[in-house]
């Protein structure tokens, strides 16, 4: 067919043109700025200046730690929720709806909700108090209790952003023909094995997408951390904001942005490679 060669490019054209104008063009300016020192010389001066800041390394490690904690749990939880939803007979769209509710909640709002739960006189303390476990308000989210802060942020993030993965996975699972599950079942696979050997591999494209998007979003985590952990947990995106708006140093911010970008791309490549399609042989 004659147009098969050009067709993919035609299909990509609108999106590419769009991204060119609305992303690449402004991005290019920012990228140049990231590598232009205060005196206009090209180089890594801006990176040096942000790395010099004592919050730089904590921001990187915190971001990575949060990602490492949040994403795997979310993935597992989303898979569990998706399987659950799929295996329901009645009312599954209602259950799915409930599961996706957090999707409609902005990160800032999610932070506020969780703050209301976890703060000193929040619902959690009230609950523990009602159970008679504590006498009065206990402060959980304090600067000298980093693990608690992490747990709080992780809990809020899991609550807020698991739905993103869930929805992608549910849509993907809907496309898996049920006969593969049946065949596996007949050949002795229990629920768990079916899940591992049929669902997971056949869900590969969706998993890949969900994972990539989630990891990228996780590198951009900011608002929830700011609300729950205040200034105690510097994260990359927060520092980008800080440099851009509070410190009025757009070069430093640009450098931070490049780091976020670099990390995202590195992880994306890793995920693409880990979850690559092995069934496509050499076809024409």
């Amino acid at each position: 067919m004659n147009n098969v060669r050009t067709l993919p490019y035609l299909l990509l054209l609108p999106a590419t043109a769009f991204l060119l104008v609305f992303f690449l063009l402004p991005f290019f300016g920012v990228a140049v700025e990231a590598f232009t020192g205060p005196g206009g010389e090209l180089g890594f001066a801006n990176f040096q200046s942000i790395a010099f800041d004592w919050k730089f390394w904590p921001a990187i490690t915190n971001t990575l730690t949060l990602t490492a904690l949040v994403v795997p749990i979310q993935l597992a939880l989303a898979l569990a929720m998706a399987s659950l939803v799929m295996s329901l007979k009645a009312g599954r769209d209602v259950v799915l709806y409930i599961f996706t509710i957090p999707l409609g909640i902005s990160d800032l709002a999610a932070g506020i909700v969780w703050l209301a739960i976890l703060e000193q006189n929040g619902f959690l303390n009230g609950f523990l108090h009602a159970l008679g476990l504590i006498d009065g308000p206990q402060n959980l989210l304090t600067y000298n209790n980093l693990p608690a802060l992490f747990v709080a942020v992780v809990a809020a993030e899991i609550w807020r952003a698991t739905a993103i993965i869930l929805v992608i996975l549910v849509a993907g699972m809907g496309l898996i023909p049920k006969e593969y599950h049946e065949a596996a079942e007949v050949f002795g696979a229990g629920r768990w094995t079916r899940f591992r050997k049929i669902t997971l591999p056949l869900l590969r494209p969706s998993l890949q997408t969900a994972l990539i998007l989630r990891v990228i979003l996780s590198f951009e985590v900011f608002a929830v951390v700011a609300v729950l952990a205040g200034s105690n947990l510097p994260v990359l995106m927060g520092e980008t904001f800080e440099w851009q708006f509070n410190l009025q140093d757009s070069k430093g911010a640009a450098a931070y942005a490049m780091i976020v970008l670099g990390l995202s791309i590195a992880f994306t490549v890793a995920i693409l490679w880990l979850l690559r399609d092995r069934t496509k042989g050499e076809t024409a």
Partner: protein
Amino acid sequence: MADIVIKSVAKRFGSHTALHDIDLTIKDQEFMVLLGASGCGKTTLLRIIAGLETLSSGEVSIGGRRVDHLPPRERGIAMVFQNYAVFPHMTVFENIAFGLRMKKVSEADIKDKVTRAATLMHIDPYLERYSAQLSGGQRQRVAVARALAVEPSVLLMDEPLSNLDALLRLEMRAELKGILAESKTTTIYVTHDQVEAMSLADRISVMNGGRIVQAAPATTVYANPADRFVGGFIGNPPMNFLPAKRSGNEAEVAGYRLAAPAGGGSLELGIRPEDMDIAEDGLHGKVRVVEPLGPHKLVSVDVDGHLLRAVLPNEADVKSGAAVALAPRPGTVRWFEAESGKAVATSGVAA
């Protein structure tokens, strides 16, 4: 012991009843072939035995144990799906090994058994391919190999050879029969190929509209169909039916007189196409079409307004448009009640 006992099993899909009150016993190590028109419920029955479909009512036991509440994996079965269900994300090898891995067979044994099953199905050259790289028939054979490899006590096969050419099918069929007998597997085999059915079956169950109408050895089903449906369904071309006028111990069919069973009610004569010869006297009619069938020819004759098909040797002297008389060979005529379609017992041979 892996006999299968199906007791008044029914299956409804919404308002549509796919299976009505099925009662069927398949003996241990028996090779049961399931025959029936498209949409009559064969696949549904297999799926119920496998545990992939819930019963609307009834019971299923395998080896004396009620299984209708057991999941498929605990029923000791393997199945070849009508649409293969070859896992697209696994190589042929992994597909065939799947059931074995579930049984925690050792790696060496797996290699061994997979290779054997694949060789048997002539797909050993493709062990490293994925399903998307196989032809239809190759995929089907993978599905069969996968089921054979686990050496189940019960094997359910849903048209497992339908996409294979005749030669390969002949070969596969023979190998299947041999290997399943050897491994003492109880088999239910759905096919629409009657030659296959005849040559494989210990018994044949003929289904019609969600009911089992006859379950008997192949020759019985062929020679003494339990009703018109079976007679018309089995045999290619099928049995001919002609209305008869009864008078005492005789009946008259299109002017030809034959001995007939006594009793009331109107009768129909059933005669297989290959059971007639050209003769002086017989069923008189006019030849409509002559079709070559390789070794024979299929002759369609208009007998008193009814279509009569006969399979005649290639040498037989029939021409389109000519008159012809066809005489049934002795003992090949069957009688059916015209209303119910049920066979009428003849000369000691019960249906």
